[in-house]
């Protein structure tokens, strides 16, 4: 059984007939060809590697069907940099060595975008609690938490239009 959907990802409209059971993460990766969104727990909603923004709010794209995103706006990690300029979070992750293998990074970044939109001046504890839905195996989290705090400072100093 399939159904036509129209999903906007990073500003581009994708109109496709999709099986009802197709996961949003598979729509993003296999239909739209945007492979920056990853799968690490295989559809349990625990690892957070598939986190994207749905109408600006962080969601785990393995926990939604593609048909549930019909008519909605999705932002993936590929849509984070604007006009070739890295997002403040991306800059901070690079400066602070917040990445090793990079597999969790996309999901962490998208969660952090939402976190900073909700709380532009988070404490270290608030950042760490905000990231509990994203597992990282390589870094021990400290450089990630530092990078989110640094990005928050940078974004407060120079808000994006």
């Amino acid at each position, binding site marked *: 059984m399939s159904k036509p959907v129209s999903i906007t990802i990073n500003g581009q409209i994708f109109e496709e007939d999709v*099986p009802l*059971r*197709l996961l949003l993460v598979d729509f993003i*990766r296999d239909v739209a060809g*945007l*492979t*920056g*969104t*990853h*799968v*690490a*727990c*295989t559809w*349990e909603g*625990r*690892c957070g*590697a598939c986190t994207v923004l749905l109408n600006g709010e962080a969601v785990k794209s393995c926990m939604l069907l593609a048909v549930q995103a019909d008519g909605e706006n999705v932002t*993936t*990690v*590929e849509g*984070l*940099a604007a006009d070739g300029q*890295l997002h403040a979070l*991306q800059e901070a*992750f*690079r*400066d602070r*060595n917040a*990445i*090793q*293998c*990079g*597999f*969790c*990074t*996309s999901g962490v*970044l998208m969660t952090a975008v939402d976190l900073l939109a909700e709380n532009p001046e988070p404490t270290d*504890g608030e*950042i*760490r*609690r905000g*990231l*509990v*839905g*994203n*597992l*990282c*195996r*390589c*870094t*021990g*989290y*400290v*450089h*990630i*938490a530092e990078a989110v705090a640094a990005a928050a400072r940078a974004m407060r100093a120079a808000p994006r239009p």
Partner: protein
Amino acid sequence: MSTTETSAPWVGRSIPRKEDLRLLRGRGQYLADLALPGMLHLVFARSAQAHARLQAVDGARARAMRGVVAVVTGEDIRREIQPLPIKVVQPNLTAKYPTFWPLAVGKVCFHGEPIAAVVATDKYVAEDAARAITARYDPLPVVTDVEAALQPSAPRLNEDWDDNVMFSVDFGEDVSALMAQADVVVRGRFRAHRVGVTPLETRGVLAQWAEPDGMTVWITNQRPHVERLALADVLGIPAQQMRVIAPRDQGGAFGTKAPFYREEILVCYLARKLGRPVRWVETREEHLMAVSQERDQIHDLELAARRDGRILAMRDRVLGDVGDAKEGVYWGYLMPFIGAALLPNGYDLPKLDVKLRCVVTNKSALSPARAFGSFPSRFAMDRAVDMLARRLGLETADVIRINLIKDLPHTTATGVYYDSGDYRRVLDTLLEKVDLPAFRREQDSARRQGRYVGIGFGTGTAFSGVASEVLVPVENQPGYGAATVRIDPRGKVFLAEGDAPHGQGHETVFAQVAADEFGIHPDDVVLSYGDTTTTPFGSGTIGARGASYTVSAVVEACRHLKAKMARILAHDLKLAGAGPEDFDFAGGEIVYRRDPTKRRGFAAHADRIVMGPLDLPAGDSGGLEHTAFFEAAKPMYGFSAHAAIVEVNPESGEFKVLRYVTMEDVGRAINPRMVESQVQGGVIQGLSNTIYEQFVYDAEGQQQSTSFLTYRMASAADVPTVEVYHADTPCPLTPLGTRGLGEGVPGPVPAALTNAVVDALTPFGFEFTTLPLRPERIWAALHGKAAGGAAEAPKVV
């Protein structure tokens, strides 16, 4: 920080990583991101039972489903695939090696063993079809406990064996006389649970067969060159038709992707059989059931010592539970074997008596995890040293100190050669950082307020690469590091290594090193890796080889080419008698040191040698490319010491890590911030292993920890910030003085944390020797309910 703002030297600077520019944009190229036209999807059906005769596997219903291209069982493939063991992935050590195929034949030995595979045009259909496969089992008695598996009446996993003992080894000699005469003997049963370092990216394989080129296969993998040889052998494919590529980006491995596994064999077999590309991407459930389970050792360890704490002898009876052991390269037992060999750790233990037995059980094969086998043995040893100090009323740090190896090089009584370093300086520098006397005063005043804080130490010697003299006998593979360096006519440098990094950042650190050698910018250096067709043979990204062996091969290859460039420049500029040492490579130029007006641009000179190979010195030819194979004169090890400070609530057993401090000796750091990141991550892996994670099997061998909800990894809110410090001594055996670091970092963690909890609860006479270290288990041990505190009371002779 931008790499354009500053200049050489690049080594020693925390420049941002080259890798991050693609990873931050979601442009990584991981295995699951690779697809080929006409690609089919493979899904495994796995055993529902832990030990049973496999009467029949029925794929008829699956085969009939629309979109299903093939269904295969063990019986279908057993005559077409050479079973393991095969020599290239079999250690040169005497052990019993079980025979196995990629799919179970005749019987199953653990819950999750592959019994059939489905290939379909769509991955959802392949999963439906795999669920439609049914098997008839004739159940056999299950054994999941290592001591039960040793009983004469225990069910045997391999019916052609007389028992379940796969491998035994003895180190040292009888120490009974020393034990009998010693001032004090402490003994305990130390147990590390089954736990590992599952990476965030699961395994995967994409295979393509094309006549006449043969097989091209992408595998999540740490050692593509060894995979290539093994796959050619089991599939009967001439080696020139076998190309293995580890993807450019891999989502971590930590040892998990180092073995030669069953699944890649079957994916390749089916790609050839069907004449179409086939991809398998492992689910997390499969991953947690089949791989990444390590540790799982029992140590009955005794120390005999003088009253001043000096250890005279150690005796240990070690049991390693290696699961079904069906896994190429490691066979489950190499981890406990190395763990036992490294039992002396950084201690000078002149006399020891260690006997290790590795036993098969109805569990998944033990597969490597960072700290490779020595996580349990370091826990046992450093816990025992702590018990000894408590027994004697001495400060544990003092007992560690008087037993540390003073003079290096040193060969342990287990035959392990430690090359260099200053172990006491590492410990002493750590003690300064934690200010032990001040801590003891704080501890006293806290106790008076009813608060229980404690400090614990863990130490460790760890591989800095693995020398051929170790790796050939143990893994049947060479230990040398290999690198190719090619300079192009624009003065850009191309590096290639045969290993397969998976998050370590080789592209950045190798570029820093080559940039300094040639006096150019790291942006002008690119690194390629992982493809067996385009890289020199290497044994893989294992055992902290990157900054020890492989980077040293890069340096040697660069220096070979610098000598050639210098020779030709001396010839061109008619500098009679000038040798390679008379030229500086700096600022993009090659400068004659005795007369700096005599110089040439690096790129111009490369162009002259590669594109204009006329009028060359006698004996030289054109071109600038060299492959170096670096072998250190002796095996190399690094040493580190960790301290944990915790506060424990004796009412609940809950504890909080107040400080975690590490002191490392990395020799010379190439990129200090990346080194720090390795330590941060390694400590948190060790902490997560010690406290949170555990693979659980029930009495029937059913796996109970098959998702991230039941196999719980530490999250950002669970863990402390590690204070990372250094007491570096340059390694004399590498050209830059570097040591490898990363592999061993989790090793000292369980003892440091447990010793800290024990120290905090000293007023209660508390002991704890069985991991995991969890509040409810601490509480139970504290209230006399055994869990975790099953040790015998320390005995004074």
